[in-house]
């Protein structure tokens, strides 16, 4: 696999194989893969002085202490983490007006959908299955695994989403 490898942080002295993490960042809906040793410190995901140098576990509210190791933090093989600069992300949902909710950046779209479908639009499960979230002007619907922190625009910590009906293909 073609992965990013933090220098000197792959494997460990006990010969344990490195583990792969899915790292989500702003500006890319999909994660990239990084190989790290479970005994490395979380800081190894961050370039020194990097503005985006804060790390969260997926769906976690609190950011991680960069000086603890992955294994101590409970981060294992194929876990998802988020790296970014926004500590909170303001989501503006457009559905019969604007509705706002603030989330941690590692919150998934699946979680935002539950708020949008249940609390805002009051959709039944059957109706919810026929709706999706998308960014204005996008050419695709958002997948449930996307982090809201990956959607923030430069210089802001804000995301605007539309609640849309899913198409039924007709010929």
């Amino acid at each position: 696999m073609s992965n990013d490898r933090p220098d000197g942080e792959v494997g460990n002295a006990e010969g344990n194989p490195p583990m792969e993490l899915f790292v989500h960042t702003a500006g890319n809906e999909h994660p990239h893969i990084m190989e790290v040793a479970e005994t490395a410190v979380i800081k190894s995901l961050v370039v020194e002085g990097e503005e985006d140098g804060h790390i969260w576990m997926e769906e976690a509210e609190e950011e991680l202490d960069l000086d603890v190791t992955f294994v101590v933090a409970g981060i294992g093989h194929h876990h998802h983490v988020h790296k970014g600069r926004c500590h909170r992300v303001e989501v503006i949902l457009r559905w019969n007006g604007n509705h706002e909710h603030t989330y941690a950046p590692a919150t998934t779209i699946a979680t935002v959908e539950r708020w949008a479908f249940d609390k805002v639009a009051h959709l039944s499960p059957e109706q919810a299955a026929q709706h999706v979230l998308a960014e204005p002007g996008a050419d695709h619907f958002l997948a449930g695994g996307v982090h809201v922190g990956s959607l923030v625009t430069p210089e802001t910590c804000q995301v605007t989403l539309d609640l849309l009906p899913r198409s039924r293909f007709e010929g």
Partner: protein
Amino acid sequence: MTTVTAPPDERALRAHFDSGRFCAGAAARQWRLIDITWPNAVLAISAAERPNAPSEWVLRFELTGYPHTAPTGGLWDVAADASMAPARRPKGQRAAQLFRSDGWIGGATAMYAPWDRLGLQAHPDWANRYPMQAWNPTRDLSFMLEQVHEVLNADDYLGA
């Protein structure tokens, strides 16, 4: 000695299989790669639990020209090494429409959807009518796998 180099479309697909998007779906057991025999790839896509239904459905894709040309793919019977018989295809409102068994010409090898090559060829207006789900060259195979996985895990999926 002659070095055999894979064609660009095959190299593009194999590079995608190394991407975070594809690997994250595989790690989450949403799909798994079974075989690549160019220009075909066989993948299994997991489905919601339903009585007497498989936990995953296998699709065989034809990927000539990937990603500039849309892939096409249909349900595959691995044991028979053939397209899945119409009576055994998934049931449910959207699943049955996607994997048609009513005689649509593409039903045996393709999906009735704007992300599928045959679906688009049969409905040239779909690219404009359904731009959020239509194939374009910026897509990758995981986009298609996500669409199918969503259908096979929705409330209206009824199983086999």
